[in-house]
């Protein structure tokens, strides 16, 4: 133990400060590492946001028109009126259409059977057949909806509406046009912040690999000072990188930011604390940089795409996937980020998530300090 309470604390703080200064310098003079800690979230956010734009805006249809009536041509004109659906040259038979289909030249094949015009004229049911490619369900579903929607509108205009006893009206809160980017960008914030946190772990394993770790052991620096120093450095840089990524989200992708920036940054610090706690804990067990990256990538980054409610909702009926989701810090921050940015909620509304992150971070930090001190002795 350090002699004398005040003096001990003072020395401890000085050692902590020297770790912090050393680490800042280290990062500053390594351009690659500086990029990883400061700029990578903004760059990655830009890339990922384009990857995850699911709005399929344009679709190409091949049409087999066996009817050739004026009504069928009206119908096709109505389908393509707004330019989102384009038609290929008319196709004569099914085989030819399927060939286009397999080559990926068309998204769907529309078959208008003979008698279509007559049925429509006679106010009967006029069936058409739409064939989509099931190997890409996302596109298939969106092509189906856009054809069905336009068909319904055209159909109601021509034959009129049968008096309905009641109607459905819908409203979508927080994201009225269901723009997928408005929902994905706040969620992806959670994923891209994994990179600066990985840098924290690399900051430790790099020293082990290069050999400066042994030098560190011979200095009077204690384990907890070393780890807390690292945490302070990477957390502060992580917050700066958050601001850069937020700028991309708001000014480039035009995602609405309805909550408070202060609240957002506070909760981001909470999230980074949890992430970095976990990463520093990992760094205790590994001694190479490639093991660090692979571990962070495989245990945090990739699962976060699918198990956290980023795209598909968490399956609450399966205990396994519910527990996995709760254990991943990303799950909680995806909720927080969307809630603050889109719903303008505050800390009080998000207490469960905030608490889990804080407690998780504190626990992993304490465990890594305990493990670490042992090794130093």
């Amino acid at each position, binding site marked *: 133990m350090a002699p004398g309470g005040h003096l001990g604390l003072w020395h401890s703080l000085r050692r902590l400060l020297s770790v912090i200064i050393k680490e800042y310098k280290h990062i500053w003079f390594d351009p690659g590492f500086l990029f990883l800690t400061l700029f990578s979230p903004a760059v990655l956010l830009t*890339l990922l946001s384009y990857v995850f734009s699911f709005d399929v805006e344009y679709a190409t249809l091949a049409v087999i028109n066996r009817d050739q009536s004026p009504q069928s041509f009206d119908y096709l004109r109505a389908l393509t009126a707004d330019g989102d659906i384009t038609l290929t040259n008319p196709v004569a038979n099914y085989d030819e259409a399927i060939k286009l289909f397999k080559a990926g030249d068309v998204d769907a094949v529309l078959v208008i059977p003979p008698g279509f015009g007559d049925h429509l004229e006679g106010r009967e049911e006029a069936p058409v057949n739409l064939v989509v490619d099931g190997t890409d369900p996302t596109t298939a579903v969106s092509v189906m909806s856009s054809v069905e929607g336009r068909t319904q509108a055209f159909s109601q205009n021509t034959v009129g509406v049968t008096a309905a006893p009641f109607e459905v009206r819908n409203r979508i809160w927080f994201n009225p046009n269901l723009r997928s980017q408005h929902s994905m960008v706040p969620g992806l914030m959670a994923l891209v912040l994994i990179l600066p946190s990985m840098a924290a772990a690399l900051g430790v394993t790099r020293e082990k690999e290069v050999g400066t770790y042994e030098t560190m052991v011979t200095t009077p620096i204690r384990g907890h000072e070393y780890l807390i120093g690292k945490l302070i450095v990477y957390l502060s840089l992580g917050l700066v990188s958050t601001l850069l990524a937020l700028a991309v989200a708001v000014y480039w992708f035009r995602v609405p930011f309805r909550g408070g920036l202060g609240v957002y940054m506070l909760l981001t610090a909470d999230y980074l604390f949890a992430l970095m706690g976990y990463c520093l804990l990992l760094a205790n067990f590994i001694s190479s940089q490639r093991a660090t990256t692979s571990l962070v990538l495989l245990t945090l980054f990739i699962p976060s795409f699918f198990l956290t409610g980023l795209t598909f909702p968490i399956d609450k009926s399966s205990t396994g996937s519910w527990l996995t989701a709760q254990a991943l810090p990303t799950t909680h921050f995806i909720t927080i980020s969307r809630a603050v940015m889109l719903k303008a909620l505050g800390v009080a509304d998000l207490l469960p998530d905030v608490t889990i992150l804080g407690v998780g971070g504190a626990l992993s930090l304490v465990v890594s300090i305990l493990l670490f001190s042992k090794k130093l002795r």
Partner: protein
Amino acid sequence: MIHRLAALIVKELIQFTRDRILLAMALMMPIIQIYLLGNAIGQDIQNISIAVIDYDHSSLSREIIQALDNTKELTVDYLPGNLAEARALVNAGEATGIVVIPPDFMEDTRSPTDVPQIQVILDGTNTFTAGRALRAAQGAVQSLVKDAQVSTSNGALPGIRVYAEALFNSTLNFQDDAITSQLALITFQITSIVAVMGIVRERDIGTIEMLTITPLKRLELIGGKAITPFIIGLVNFVLMFTITQVVFGVPQRGSFLLLLGLTALYLICEIGYALTISTITRSQQQAITVVFVWAMFAMMLSGYLVSVATLPPALQWISWLIPLRHYLGIVRGVMVRGAGIGSLLPEVGSILGLTVVMLYVAQRTLSRVIE
């Protein structure tokens, strides 16, 4: 030459197996992942919680609640008394949607002039869930409307009706598509991560100088560096493939040997890219950052998430340079459509071409590093 190459391969394998954690991870994580992801994506979106505010309390409103609850996608979990309560549920993330049935709803449906409205409100913060829930809710209510209309107009409704049919995957289930994509992506990632460290690590630690004074030729060095990621990639592929078959019952309509052979070819190509990155980067962190960005590009442009056909034409051209795009075509082709080598020639030719080019580039850049 064989002798020198063998010596390097032995060194590489010893070095790799010495890092126990990395070894365990490289072999275990992909399996765990495909298992977890398969389970997560496997089920279609279902049981989305919604809240219904029933101001009417009539037999019709109960029928509507029943119809909503009967859909596969939705579960009516809450019956709040007013909008404020419902809004609190949505804010807390407990409910994804609210359906409002107005007062005197059933009475109004009987009146010849009024057309009462049911309001469906959804939380748009997750567009995936919101879109599904919206379709389901509209579908359920619409079919009730239709039933009522049919009973008054006796017979089929006039107008165009679209009968949709999905080829190759008639139920439009996401599972086969998602799992085959995942199989290709994880194979890509694990191979690239291991391969990209090959040269740069020697450089970082300083052992590259020692390698340069050995009689190793450049091509031999590349061959030796390629062998560990190749084995890791292939073993992982076989393990994950087994899981897709045994656990998830993904169809395997084509020949397994063909798939395995083409996977081996693809791995060589991908290792060529990773080793090139490895020779041009200065430190391991740089290599990691570059491979990360490379993986993102591959995910974006390969058709992993969004089909290549929907990309702008310029990007479609660029996507040709990404081996994962061709490999995804091969995996989906062989497994889902049962394609043979004949219909996969464009993909195989592209990968072959890219392999030759990348191995040449890797060898050239390496010579600059060594000299």
